[in-house]
């Protein structure tokens, strides 16, 4: 390789890392405000979700038809969606905090940030799929 091509490669790498580090992440104080708000929000929605299990005998509430009926109720479906979003954000942010306290190399921190965001989006998407399909389910 010529010295020019080596220099070009180095510049490309620098641009990549520069772009990477310029991704507009939130300030830590903003992230923690979101963490507190999602925590308090999750408390209310999860409390309602648990109470729904207690409005009828517990075993009855787990029967397929009763569960589907719950999902067909649009408000309950929205409640489940909000639980999904709030707890995914709160939980994975907490995991991110624990993981970045364990190791502090740049690669590790970036990997943790990316994996946590991917995991958050993944679990929200997977849960939303369940809610949408169950909402559209027709009981025989």
């Amino acid at each position, binding site marked *: 390789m010529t010295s020019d091509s080596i220099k070009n490669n180095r510049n490309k790498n620098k641009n990549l890392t520069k772009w990477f580090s310029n991704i507009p992440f939130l*300030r*830590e*104080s903003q*992230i*923690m405000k979101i963490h507190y708000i999602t925590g308090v929000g999750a408390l209310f929605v999860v409390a309602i979700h648990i109470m729904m299990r207690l409005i009828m005998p517990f075993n009855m509430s787990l029967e397929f038809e009763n569960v589907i009926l719950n999902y067909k109720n649009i408000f309950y479906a929205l409640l489940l969606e909000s639980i999904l979003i709030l707890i995914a954000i709160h939980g994975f942010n907490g995991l991110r905090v624990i993981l*970045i*306290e*364990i190791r*502090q190399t740049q690669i590790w*921190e970036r990997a943790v940030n990316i994996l946590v965001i991917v995991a958050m989006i993944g679990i929200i998407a997977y849960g939303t799929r369940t809610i949408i399909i169950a909402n559209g389910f027709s009981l025989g």
Partner: protein
Amino acid sequence: MMKIFKKDKTKEIRNERPLERERLNKSTSSSSSSHNNNNNNNQSLRTLRIFRINAVKNPNDVPHFDEFQVPVKRWTTVLDALLDAKSYQDSSLGIRYSCRMASCGSCGMKINGIPRLACYTKISDLDTNTITCEPLPNFPYIRDLVTDFSKFFDHHRSVMPFIQNKKADIPDVNELSEYQQSPQDLDKFLQFSYCIKCGLCYSACPTVATDLKFPGPQALSQAYRYFADSRDSDKSNRLKVIDTSHGIWRCHFAGSCSNVCPKGVDPALGIQLLRSHLLGISNSEKKIAKLQDRSNNNNYNNFYSEELEEEEEEEK
């Protein structure tokens, strides 16, 4: 001069050669009462188990513990016992100390599993026959009980631990002015200024145990000390330094720092108060102090009124 001091057994033992001393120690221990005897005139023997390492001369040195029998009286501190062991049994023992009165913060070490000041910890309070002395955790070893404080001081420097005020006209000697501060203003930060940088809080903190970039409770409480000082005007730069992914938000209020602090600095309180400012919950504290001064005492008008007017204009 010797006649002024009462001739007691301790002096006799100290003046003997080591082998003789050991013989005397054995005879005194067999004739003395139990180890937990708190009588002023009686002394007992306790075992000091001291961590030994020489990391500077030999980086591959394997740490080990050495045990020493030391005479202990009711008011004997751990530092007294360590110095006794160093003076009469093993002069190679590495100990850092200075004031011997909990004022300098030099003699911090882990005593029976908890970070404490050796000069401030009485052996009679420890209630064990064997006292284990180890270097402060989370600080690199230098030798034996002496640790490296460079990183600790680097963290302290990173929060800019000095008054910053753009209106200071110190070079202008013709118009000397003073920062006037009421006792209420002083009380807002005074306890945090009592920090002696002993490092006990840094050792006790669970976040410092794993997070190398975390500044530690001492630096963060000093950030609050200067933030809360009414003479300081540079709030934003200091807050930017600590509002990072390894800054103040990695404190989880485990409270260990306040539990071990020997001077009542209560770093946990300072950190949580600073967080409340960052969260926007109590950001009016400083302004309220200034408003009170303006209304209560006309002497402050000359200094504060201009600054207050400028702040009000900025807000508008």
